Structures are given as structure tokens and as C-alpha cells.
């Protein structure tokens, strides 16, 4: 075991986990508001990165400006998705919404290829490629800054939910749809808002990731890592999304990095660690760390 | 038949049931007995704990204290799916039919515990499995005739009107051929005509099929004509027990019901 590298892998995992947390946040937002688990979150993320790239490449915009414009488009895209695809399914069983988001992921995949082609592109760097060296620990500056941005995003959302009218309305709706309706909140509008915000979160993630790896179709796969994170944290918990994301990131990094025996390394254990973890969570604590236990009414 | 004879041991005996949800108490020290062959009504105003009591009998809720004895089994420790095998069937206040199945299949599904074909026999539907299906079909058809639902036999129950759904659900409970039939507000939400039909079916079941019934009802008046004995709950506490005429005269019962009327 590479125990001497333990602090290193812990730190790397923490930073990667920050990205997972942010994806998990998008999933939680939608689930909290509308009880829909969005399997297309990864594809929204990929689309956001492609749109940002398109602005920089074809319109020659500065990357930060392109980023902002992509966020604007993401609001429309998220709202549109909810309006067109999910709204007709309100009241349908959970399976219908699960399948709809899966269908959506395929549509977004097709649209992205059609509109932008399957080539790999690179964004102009948001942050320079540089190391941060803290004693024995070496970290990527761009990943560290992405982590900081992700955490900043969390703080913004927590403030949004605490102190803005829209945020309070969303919280109310998440607690009880009928109650929210009875006090005059438009629940469909809140669903739309949740999707718009989740889509913005996805775009932020997409651009942060694309800045690190590149603009490509495989970006969508990263959302698969956020699923265990969400389940661990609890489907409806925003702090859970942070804790879950960081846990999965750290777990993946430690399991992937610590074993030293080549035979063990060849197993690529880091790849499945999050999912084995997810199975364990499902078995022992299906509602997650901060999830709500529900009493079934008969 | 002497349903009210005190000498026969009770079919079901609930002793000192306590049931809490968090800080809320649903049942407080409730005891009652169901004697073989009788129709016992469990009545009380809204929120009195009637359905909670039924749910305890079914194993949905596990009372924190107390026991329910049925045929030498403590139901508070028996899994729900085993309770039906002991001979208890029920209907639900809000109708819990299998909405995607036909009326016929709903009844056939209730024959589940009385069939013993294996998974593989089902898959092949050959020989013994086929004979078994046909034999049980015969039993089910009798119940369908009895309840006069032949015309909707092959209709998907989700699409049926309320009154008929209630009847199919009763049929499904009957198809279990239980010793004790629990009916949770069988007449709720029905018009007068449907209520009369339902009352007739309940009495027929009792007489022709020699079944013991436990009836939960909100509407006191209706119950009085059917039930032989009545237990009254209010806020989770048993406030009275006796024959319908005794209950009608019981001041505590009158207060509970009047009190509720005042709230309205």
C-alpha cells in the first residue's frame, strides 16, 4: 500500500469530489422540487461545455463571456426541457419520469453531435496549468480553483434558498406540493425554475470540467459518479450532495491510488469503488445520510 | 348457531393494544374480542383509531404494547403475508384493488395461498398446474355469481365505477375463504341503493358462508342493523362495548358522536 501517498490521494480525491458534489447538487435540486431523478444531467453538462466552446470558437468571444452566455442559454434549455418533456408526465409513476430523462439524454446526445460534431475541442484555459505544492502534496491549480468555484456555488445556493423569495417558494414547494399550491405558489413554475437552476449548475460543471479535460462527448459520463454521491448524501439534501460528492471523490482516489501490488492495480478498483459503496449504502441506509425517512400511509 | 354465547372461546382476542406514532397515540390500551360466527362492528368518529386497529390485525402496524391472539398465533409477531394464511382477509377504506388486472384475476390472485403450483409449473402451464387453475377458477366463478358481477368479470378494475370496485374488493377478500373477514368502511362513499346492496351481501356472507366479520364503520346508524355487537373507539380509547341497543343508549357514545357533530 502506498500509505505515504495517503494525504496526497485524500487531497486529490477531495478536489475531484468537489466536482461530483456540484453535479449531485443539480440532481438534488430537481429531485427536491419535482421528485424526478435526472439521468440526463450529464448530457446537460456536456451540452453546456459544447455551447461555451462554440461561442469562443465561432464568435471569438472571451471564454468568460462565453461561459456567461452559456449559462444564460442553460436557463432557457432547463426551463424548456421541463416544459416540453417533464410537464406532461406530472402525476405519472416514477418509471415514466426515469425513462423520460433517459430518453432526454439520448436526444441531447444526438443534438450535440448534429450541432457540433463529435470532435474533441479544447476551451481556452480559464485557469493556468500550474501545480500547487504543499509540502509533499501536489495539486492541480485548475482543479483546486474548480473546487473553490464549486463550493462558492454551494454557498450561493444556500443563500438563495434562505433569503430570496424564489428560493423560499422552492423550499415550500419541495416540502408539500399541495400546500404550496394552496398558498398561491405555482408549482409548475417552480418545477421549471428547478430545472433551469439545475441546468445552470450542469453548465458550470461542464465548463469547469472541459477546462480540465476538454470538450468532448465523454463528458456526460462523469454524471455516473454523482449518482452514488446523491444516494449517499440523501436524495433531497443539499448538504448531503456536498458530503456525498466529497466522499465519493475521496473513496475513488484512495481505492484507486493506495494499492501497490501490480496485480491489484491492474484490477482498476477505483473504477467500481463508488458503485460498491452505493450498494452498501442502499443496503444499510437506503435514505442516505441526510435523507428523509418516509412513513407510508395506508 | 349461537354467536353470542360467551362459553365458546373467542376467535380473535386483542389485549391492551398501545400504538404510538412519534408522540401521537393512535391506540391506548384497547382490548376487544371477536367471537366465532358473529358480526362485530368497530365504530367511532374520525381519527378514533379504527383503521389503526385493523392495521394492527393485519401486521401493517406493530403495536408497541399488547397482543393479538388469533388461532393460537400472536398476530403482532406474524408477518403480514402469513396472517392471510391463518385465515384473515380484509378490504380497505380506499379500495386497494390491483387496478391493472381484470376483476376475475383480482379474485384469482386471492386464491394464491390456496394454490401450490411452483414457479416452473406456472411457466409451463401444463398438467397439474392447468388443472389447478381450472379448479380455482370454478371457486372464483361461484363468488362472482354470488356478488352479481358476472358482467364485469373481464373488465380491468381500474376503470370500474366506485360501487363495483368495492364489490370486487369484497369478492377478492371472500376468495381467500377466510375465517375472519375484516371490512374497513365497506359502505363509505356509496349512495343509498349501493349501501343497501352491500348490506345485503354482508348479511348473506355471514349467513350462507358462516363467516365471522369485523366491520369498521364511521356511520353508526347503518351498523346497528347489521352488527350483533359493537365496540366504540374515541381518540384511540375504547369507550363502550355491547349490543347495538346498548350502544345507542350509552351516554359516552352519544357524547363522542355529538361532540363530533358540534365540531362540524
Amino acid at each position, binding site marked *: 500500500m502506498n500509505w505515504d501517498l495517503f494525504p496526497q*490521494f485524500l487531497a486529490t480525491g477531495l478536489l475531484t469530489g468537489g466536482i461530483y458534489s456540484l453535479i449531485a447538487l443539480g440532481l438534488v435540486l430537481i429531485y427536491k422540487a419535482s421528485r424526478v431523478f435526472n439521468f440526463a444531467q450529464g448530457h446537460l453538462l456536456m451540452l453546456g461545455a459544447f455551447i461555451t466552446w462554440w461561442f469562443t470558437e465561432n464568435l471569438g468571444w472571451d471564454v468568460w463571456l462565453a461561459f456567461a452566455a452559456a449559462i444564460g442559454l442553460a436557463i432557457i434549455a432547463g426551463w424548456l426541457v421541463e416544459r416540453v418533456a417533464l410537464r406532461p408526465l406530472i402525476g405519472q409513476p416514477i418509471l415514466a419520469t426515469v425513462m423520460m430523462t433517459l430518453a432526454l439524454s439520448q436526444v441531447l446526445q444526438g443534438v450535440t453531435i448534429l450541432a457540433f460534431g463529435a*470532435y*474533441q475541442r479544447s476551451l481556452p484555459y480559464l485557469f493556468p*496549468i500550474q501545480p500547487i505544492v504543499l509540502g509533499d502534496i*501536489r495539486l492541480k491549480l485548475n*482543479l483546486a480553483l474548480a473546487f473553490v468555484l464549486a463550493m462558492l456555488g454551494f454557498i450561493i445556493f444556500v443563500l438563495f434558498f434562505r433569503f430570496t423569495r424564489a428560493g423560499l417558494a422552492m423550499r415550500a414547494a419541495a416540502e408539500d406540493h399541495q400546500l404550496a399550491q394552496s398558498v398561491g405558489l405555482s408549482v409548475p413554475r417552480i418545477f421549471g425554475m428547478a430545472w433551469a437552476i439545475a441546468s445552470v449548475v450542469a453548465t458550470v460543471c461542464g465548463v469547469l*470540467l472541459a477546462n480540465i479535460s476538454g470538450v468532448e462527448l465523454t463528458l456526460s459520463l*462523469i454524471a455516473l459518479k454523482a449518482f452514488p454521491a446523491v444516494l449517499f448524501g440523501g436524495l433531497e439534501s443539499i448538504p448531503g450532495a456536498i458530503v456525498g460528492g466529497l466522499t465519493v471523490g475521496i473513496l475513488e482516489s484512495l481505492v484507486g*491510488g493506495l494499492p501497490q501490488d501490480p496485480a491489484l492495480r*491492474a484490477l482498476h478498483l477505483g473504477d467500481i469503488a463508488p458503485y460498491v459503496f452505493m450498494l452498501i449504502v442502499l443496503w444499510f441506509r437506503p435514505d442516505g445520510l441526510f435523507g428523509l425517512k418516509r412513513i407510508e400511509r395506508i | 348457531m349461537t354467536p353470542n354465547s360467551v362459553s365458546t372461546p373467542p376467535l380473535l382476542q386483542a389485549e391492551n393494544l398501545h400504538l404510538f406514532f412519534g408522540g401521537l397515540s393512535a391506540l391506548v390500551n384497547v382490548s376487544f374480542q371477536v367471537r366465532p360466527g358473529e358480526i362485530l362492528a368497530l365504530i367511532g368518529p374520525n381519527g378514533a383509531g379504527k383503521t389503526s386497529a385493523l392495521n394492527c390485525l393485519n401486521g401493517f402496524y406493530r403495536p408497541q404494547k399488547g397482543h393479538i391472539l388469533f388461532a393460537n398465533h400472536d398476530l403482532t409477531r406474524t408477518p403480514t403475508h402469513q396472517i392471510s394464511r391463518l385465515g384473515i382477509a380484509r378490504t380497505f377504506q380506499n379500495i386497494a384493488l390491483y387496478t391493472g388486472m381484470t376483476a376475475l384475476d383480482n379474485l384469482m390472485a386471492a386464491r394464491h395461498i390456496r394454490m401450490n403450483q411452483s414457479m416452473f409449473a406456472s411457466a409451463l402451464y401444463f398438467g397439474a398446474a392447468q388443472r389447478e387453475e381450472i379448479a380455482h377458477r370454478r371457486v372464483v366463478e361461484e363468488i362472482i355469481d354470488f356478488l352479481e358481477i358476472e358482467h364485469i368479470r373481464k373488465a380491468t378494475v381500474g376503470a370500474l365505477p366506485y360501487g363495483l370496485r368495492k364489490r370486487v374488493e369484497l369478492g377478492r377478500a371472500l376468495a381467500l375463504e377466510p375465517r375472519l373477514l375484516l371490512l374497513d368502511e365497506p359502505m363509505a362513499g356509496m349512495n343509498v341503493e349501493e349501501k343497501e346492496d352491500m348490506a345485503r351481501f354482508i348479511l348473506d356472507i355471514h349467513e350462507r358462508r358462516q363467516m365471522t366479520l369485523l366491520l369498521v364503520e364511521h356511520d353508526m346508524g347503518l351498523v346497528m342493523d347489521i352488527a350483533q355487537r359493537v365496540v366504540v373507539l374515541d381518540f384511540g380509547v375504547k369507550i363502550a362495548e355491547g349490543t347495538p341497543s346498548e350502544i345507542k343508549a350509552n351516554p359516552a357514545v352519544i357524547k363522542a358522536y355529538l361532540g363530533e357533530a358540534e365540531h362540524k
Partner: protein
Amino acid sequence: MNKIVLTITLVVMAVLVLTACAPAPAPTPVPPTPAPKPTEPPKPTTAPATTAPQPTAAPKPTDVPKPALRTKANPGETITLYHLGDVTGPLAAITTPLVSGFDDGVKYLNKTGGIRGAQVLLEMSDTASQVDRAILGYNRFREKKPLVLQMYGSGETEALKARLAEDKIPVLTAGVSSKGSYPPGYVFAVVPIYTDQFGLFIDWLVLNWDKVKPAKGQGLDSPKIALVTWDSAFGRDVLTAETRAYAERKGVKIVGQELFTPGAPDVTTQILAAKKAGANVIYTNTLAHGPAQILKDTVSLGVREEFLIAGCNWTLDLSMLGLAREAAEGFYGVFPNHWWDDADHPGVKIIQAEFAANNRKPAERAVGYLLAFSFVEAMKQYIEKTIDRVGFEGLTGAAVYETIVATGELKAMQGVTALDYNKDRRAPSKARIVQVQKGKFVYLTDWMTAPDLKPK
């Protein structure tokens, strides 16, 4: 019932565990059906028999063809080339420009007289890098009796290898895995197979170690290679018993294999584990974004000077330069073809002109376009040689196969890349080592011949 299910489950689980823990089977009982006849590629010598329906087929190439041999296309006659590749999926970066190159290559052929006067058509099928789709696509093509197929993915090529031999359809593949190309069948690798490329790299490394070794780093007396590569059939193809033995013979240590998923945003764990294992060289068998991620992460960890980083031919592409940018500086690779920058090369000149004439996007100025264009031209040469031998009537996949194994070296597009096959060889072996210098590929060596490290 429940108990029965549980018991059966436990018993079968126990059996499964026992079999999984059992020692590896002795080699003797392994081949129960020692290469059944239909899967065995027909030997070249017997192959003419399969083309027997054409009485005109001369038994020896030296014989003068009978006058009945038709070597000119009838008016309106067409020949279709087939393209079974992954336009999407993890390899899309390299394969999307391939489609354009293929398209433009066919246009160019038709502009310059087709194949002995026959118009050339093109049919494509996307496999999305999924073998099941490749098989469906192959089934579609197979019924049309293609003369020759073009394929890309290692996985797909390996999956279809047996059936290609059964159906006698030769294929030029860019998925040049050792397992797909050998034992010899109807699969022809268009560049040296990955194991041979790695061998060539080791040859060069040993010869030049003192000149090229990293500035700092560990154990610099000799090269210590860590493979940092994709967790896929393609990514893992390099590390075989043959390459391990070869490296050892050359005094090069292979200290580990670190795997990552294509598209993973972070490979720092793998790099640090490689460093821990004592590596001073990183070799990667991936496509362009593989090395880009490795290069960027070594820079952003501050360990770039501690490693010599190199990769197989597919790592050397436009998108790698785009993705890695300054981090790409100093990257080495095995390069079996010419590049867009070789403006003096006659073949490259033509391709440049066609590229411009077809208004292609700059993003397509990739290795895929260049090679696909050349392969189309190579297919034309092979088919024309076949026509010369057996006439249009005798034109079958088997006949083209005969031509391919008999031709020896063939310069595709006047040598943009060179193909070289015979009855035993299924891949060319010539390549040069290049290095990225100031954003361009610079040839460091002359053409070298790769050692033969095909699987035994």
C-alpha cells in the same frame, strides 16, 4: 419456496466462487475444438480454389490472361467501398475526420477515372465503438459481398475477425491490436501493430537514452517505463508476454500499468502511482485526448521534467496538440505516416488540395482524414491489381485478399503511408520517432523497422 430459492442460490454461488478460485486451467484441455475448419482462414495457396467459379482465373500470375478477361468497366458499372467505423463513442476524435477523408478520397478517385473506369460508391455504418453495433453493421454489409472493408476499432476488428475469414472479406483496419491482426486472417493492420510500435519505441529509447532521458527524476541510469493507458481492449493491448520479454532483453524495466477511463478528468492518481513505482518514462496506448490528459496533469503536478512521455501513433494527432497545447511540447511518439506539414510530399500535396477544394473545417485536418484518404487510394490499387489478374468477372473478396498478400509493399497515396503484407505478415513495420517541438511534429529518426512482437 423461498428457502429452496435461497438454498439453490447459495449452492450455485458456492460453485461459482470455487470455480473462480480454482487454479487456471492447464493448457491441455483448453482447445476442445482445435480451430474448426470454418473459422480457420483459408491458406493462401488453397484460396484460388475458392474463386474457382471463374474459369478465367489463371493459376499462376505469370500466365498470360486469356482474352476473355475484362479489365475495363462497362458503362455505369460501380464498385462500392465499405466503411464500418465508430463515428461516435470514445474514439470519435480520430474517427470523425476519417469519415470526411473517406468521402473526399472517393470523390478524388471518381475525379481521376474511378477504378478502371468504374464509378466508386461509398457505404458507411456507425458502430459507436460498440461491438454489437459493429456486428449489426457487418451483417448489413456482408450480404452485399464487399470486396474490401475499412474498419477502425480494435474491439470491433477482433470481434469480426473469424467471420471475415469465413466470409472471405479482407479488411483494412486502423484498430491494429495484436490480437485482431494475428494469427493471420483476413484482417490487415494499416500501421504497425501496437506491440511492434512499443518495441520500436524501446529500440529507439535504449539507443538514445543518454540524450533523451528526463532532466531530473529517478533511476536515470536506465529507462523504467510505466504504461498509463485506457482501461479498454485498445489501451491494454501493449503489455503482453512478448513485449515484457523484449523490454527485459533490452534492459528496460516495465514498472507498472496504470489504467484510466477515457474521458477521466484527472489522471494525477495514476501519474503519482507511476512515480511511486519508480518510473521515468510514461508510454500511453490511447487516442489524442489520452496523452493530452497525461501531459497536462504532469505539468499541473509539476512533475513534467521527471518523465519522458510517449505514445503510439494514434496519440499523434491534431486534437492532441489542441487539447494539450504548451503541455504537448517534448512529447514523443511512433509515427508510421507522413503529416500535413510535409508540404513537399506529392501525396500530401494532393490531399491538401482536395481538403481545400471540399471546404473542410480546420478541425478535420487530422490524422484520420489523411490516412482515410490514402486507404481509399490503396484499396483502389489493390482492386485494380486484382482486376488485372482476374478481370471484372473474377472480382471477389477472396481475389482481393490474394492480391493483398501477394503485393508486398504498396505506397498508398504515393507513400503518405506504406502498406506491406505477405502471407505471414498482417501489418507494416516501418515507422519514425517524432517529437512535438513548437506545436509541430518533428522527425527525430529515419525510417526504422519495428521488432516483430506479435503474439505467439
